């Protein structure tokens, strides 16, 4: 699932779909953490995955706020057209 997320980030040009592919990657990491925890009878991975969910919530809110702010100036979400900072 992680490689599917990376594929999505690299291929798509819509900024929102790129964010969703980042969420796929985070979910893949979560399932890997919990699976290893189950096999080794530990609790640390579950706590870490709890933190990963919290961090994902924070970055999704800030990232979408950035997309909205950029959308105000230039009404597109096409990543190829976000070139205001190019030299």
């Amino acid at each position, binding site marked *: 699932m992680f490689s*599917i*997320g*990376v594929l*999505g980030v690299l291929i798509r040009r819509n900024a929102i779909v790129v964010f*969703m592919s980042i*969420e796929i990657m985070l979910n893949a990491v*979560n399932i890997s953490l919990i699976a290893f925890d189950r096999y080794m009878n530990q609790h640390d991975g579950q*706590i870490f995955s709890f933190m990963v969910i*919290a961090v994902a919530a924070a970055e999704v809110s800030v990232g979408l706020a950035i997309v909205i702010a950029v959308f105000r100036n230039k009404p597109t979400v096409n990543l190829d057209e976000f070139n205001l900072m190019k030299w």
Partner: protein
Amino acid sequence: MELLIFYPLAIACVVLSMLVVFNSSPIASAMSLIGMMLCLAGVFVVLQAHFLAALQVIIYAGAIMVLFMFVIMLLNLSDDDKQWVARERNLFLSVSAGALILGVLYKFIDITSGTEFNSPAEVPDTFGTVRQVGTTLFTDFVLPFEVASILLLVAMIGAVVLAKSKVD
């Protein structure tokens, strides 16, 4: 018996994540992502991590994806036209990332097909319950917990400031 539940859920996760990436409409991608998170919560339950399954449904599928839907509907995005041509000037990056992923996958399969998976460790009945996770969270991991709360506060302030309109 658990495998009977696990395999359809896992296949559904992979299929739905492929649908997220290869779909032309952003709303359909968001719905597939919600479905994928719910299937993943089912996989968590099979792995006896009940608290995290509930957290996944409430926070991830319930709040984060709703935020995504709000933004998609606010920006009123239409369907994308066909566009998975590799972006110009990114061909080298895409090919090298693909080669890297294939290499990692090959190595992983190489390693895991050599070792024997022992039967999973005996976990007590209270493995993934709220009480156990809460105890561990508040005794061993208090500092990351507090830091995470500060992080969420900062992110909230940042999101409000960034998305404010210019009327003052």
